[in-house]
């Protein structure tokens, strides 16, 4: 039994479709939603407002009890800072509610639709954040968050703002790199430093397959999740939509080039057909039957904790190859924020919590040292910890590399108010392409048409 599926060790960035919600539960909740509708929003509003003066710190004597929602990995990380927090704010008590990501979001949606029942604070992934910002479910924290704007990696602010107001505090970025098996590369005689472009990467894949029989990466065909596709588009500043929100899947030639590139690994049998986050997928990584994993920094947590704890020293990291010389080597996958809900009646205490846990270098460093959840505070990158080598990655200095990538993540049209929908409309088309039932061009044309139909975008 794959353990993560039943008790997910979810990272703050995952979007695994976990759920224990049955249809009956759903019906019950929908019924409750209908019931609670003519509800308490107005009453809560009346007692929720506080005249927060700009930028002054929250008083030490602020009292309150706040509820924080999230999933296990993210809450465990936040709890690392709690003893310091209690010392600084002795009168604030904390209550954590730990549910898998999909269930957390569903509960948030029901709470905001019902007008009551939302937490004071929740962990939200960047992929889901725009929906809530757009809906107006989150508290406007512009007054106190603005001083952090210059201190945090720039791209993280993209989804936090609406009409120049700020609705969340960025937590971790998801800088992406290539994790590779040192032993496999060595056996095949491939020097990772020689891989500069994606073409080099593909050639290396062929050499590795010829000489060792090992697959270059694991990419499911019929059960593809579209995540590598998104990551590679992000690197090129492309995506589902352009800056104006128009669909570009069928217009930007980079998109088709990317999908065709991924496709070559299937047709040339360089990709293992394994669904991510399943036992065989883990096994590929622990047993060294896959040469690379292209993923974000947080993948390290999973390697070390349960995917391949015994493979210490076998894995290394190098930066993404470029599409053309001088191109970007940075991309993003996942990432999250802490947001305060508009419904919260404890906004001062909630602010104290969010600011203390994410606004201090020491807090973000404490979390990073124990969990591989990367800081977004650029000031934290100066800490000596970044210069230390990581024994798991063969004593490589991976932290400075990821800091470097995090600072250069380009803007891209991946996450948006309709991200969930666009991703779920595109994925089946990629699956069809992967199975050889349609060309990349057809796949993208179909996906673009469906997205335009359903989201009413141009």
């Amino acid at each position, binding site marked *: 039994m794959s353990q993560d599926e039943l008790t997910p060790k979810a990272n703050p960035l995952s979007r695994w479709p976990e*759920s224990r919600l*049955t249809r009956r539960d759903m019906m019950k909740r*929908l019924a409750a939603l209908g*019931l609670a509708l003519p509800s308490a929003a107005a009453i809560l509003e009346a007692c929720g407002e506080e005249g927060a003066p700009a930028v002054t710190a929250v008083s030490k004597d602020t009292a309150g009890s706040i509820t924080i929602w999230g999933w296990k990995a993210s809450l465990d990380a936040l709890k690392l800072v709690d003893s310091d927090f209690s010392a600084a704010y002795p009168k604030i008590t904390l209550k954590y509610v730990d549910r898998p990501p999909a269930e957390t*979001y569903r509960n948030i949606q029901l709470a905001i639709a019902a007008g009551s029942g939302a937490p004071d604070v929740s962990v939200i992934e960047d992929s889901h954040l725009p929906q809530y910002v757009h809906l107006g479910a989150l508290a406007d924290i512009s007054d106190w968050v603005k001083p952090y704007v210059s201190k945090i990696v720039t791209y993280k602010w993209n989804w936090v703002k609406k009409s120049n107001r700020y609705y969340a505090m960025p937590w971790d970025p998801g800088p992406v790199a290539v994790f590779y098996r040192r032993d496999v590369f060595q056996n095949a005689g491939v020097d990772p430093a020689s891989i500069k472009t994606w073409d080099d990467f593909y050639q290396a894949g062929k050499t590795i397959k010829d000489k060792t029989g090992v697959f270059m990466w694991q990419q499911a065909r019929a059960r593809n999740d579209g995540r590598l596709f998104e990551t590679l588009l992000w690197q090129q500043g492309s995506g589902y939509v352009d800056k104006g929100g128009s669909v570009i899947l069928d217009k930007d030639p980079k998109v088709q080039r990317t999908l065709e590139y991924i496709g070559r690994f299937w047709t040339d049998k360089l990709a293992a057909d394994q669904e991510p986050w399943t036992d065989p997928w883990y096994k590929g990584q622990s047993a060294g039957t896959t040469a690379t994993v292209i993923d974000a920094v947080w993948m390290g947590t999973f390697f070390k904790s349960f995917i391949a704890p015994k493979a210490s020293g076998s894995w290394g990291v190098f930066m993404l190859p470029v599409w053309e010389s001088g191109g970007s080597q940075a991309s993003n996958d996942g990432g999250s924020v802490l947001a305060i809900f508009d419904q919260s009646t404890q906004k001062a205490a909630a602010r104290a919590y969010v600011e203390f846990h994410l606004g201090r270098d020491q807090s973000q460093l404490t979390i990073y040292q124990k969990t591989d959840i990367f800081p977004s505070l650029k000031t934290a990158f100066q800490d000596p910890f970044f210069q230390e080598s990581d024994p798991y990655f063969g004593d490589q200095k991976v932290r400075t590399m990821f800091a470097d990538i995090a600072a250069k993540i380009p803007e891209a049209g991946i996450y948006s108010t309709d991200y969930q*929908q666009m991703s779920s409309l595109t994925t089946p088309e990629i699956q069809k392409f992967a199975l050889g039932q349609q060309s990349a061009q057809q796949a993208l044309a179909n996906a673009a048409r469906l997205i335009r139909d359903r989201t009413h975008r141009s």
Partner: protein
Amino acid sequence: MIRDISQDLGFTRTRPRWRRELWRHRWPLLFISPFFVLFAVFNVYPIGFSFWLSLHDWPGLGPMDFVGLTNYAELGRDSIFWSSMLNALILFFIYVPLMTFLAVVIAAVLNSRFLKLQGLWRTLIFVPNITSMVAAGYTFRLILDKDSGALNHALAILHVSAVPWLDDVWWARISLGLLMIWAWLGYNTVLMLGGLQTIPPELVEAAKVDGATAIQAFWRITVPLLRPMILFAVTISIIGTFSMFTEPYILTRGGPIRATETPVFQIFNTTFQDLRFGYAAAESYVYFAIIVAITLFQFWGLSRRDPVN
């Protein structure tokens, strides 16, 4: 002097009949009222609210935009919704005929006077139905994995090449059908057992006296008399197939290529992933209308062909 005419007009004495009846039965009515109150609050109100919702665009917060029948018009040309209907229809034909047939046969065996330990067998066949579908679904996922699953390992021993149970559009539907049969065969068997027990044994005995074999008697006497129960079970299965949710959500996540997305699965995604509450409500109403139509058609067929009527 003004005379009080109320007495003459009978205001106090002859209240409307229904009010008198109501008053006379006030205590029984009070005692059965909790059901009706809860039903009104948790069923009638949401059903009505859903219809109201289906005429609006609403992302779950803020004002609702009245859009009239626009959602229904869009639904008419929504290929994803209709393909989910088609998926349910295909799934129905994949597993319901086989499951119903097995249920009849197993029920006949379990109903036999010669079978020992009847209670044990009846319990065993029903156990999957009360097992958590989430746990069962994950277990099936592991068993059916094309590379590491137990089933393909067993097939390899028999020199059968690996089957892409969850990695092919048709095999995924068959896998889902297997899970449904595993979970619901017991329930259907119990229905059939109930039906069998209403058939007087003399009929079968009389047939045997007339020279029919056991198998002939089963097909010519028992099965026709069981028809009302079979049609009832099939009706339940139709509703169950179209509203299937947990099974595909766990086993296949609706894939590959949406092949196992059912209408309720689709409605769930529209609500919680797309945050289109109004559109999802419209989907629910169309889905409901189709289920009602199919069920009515079934009952019509049932009453027409029922030999007893």
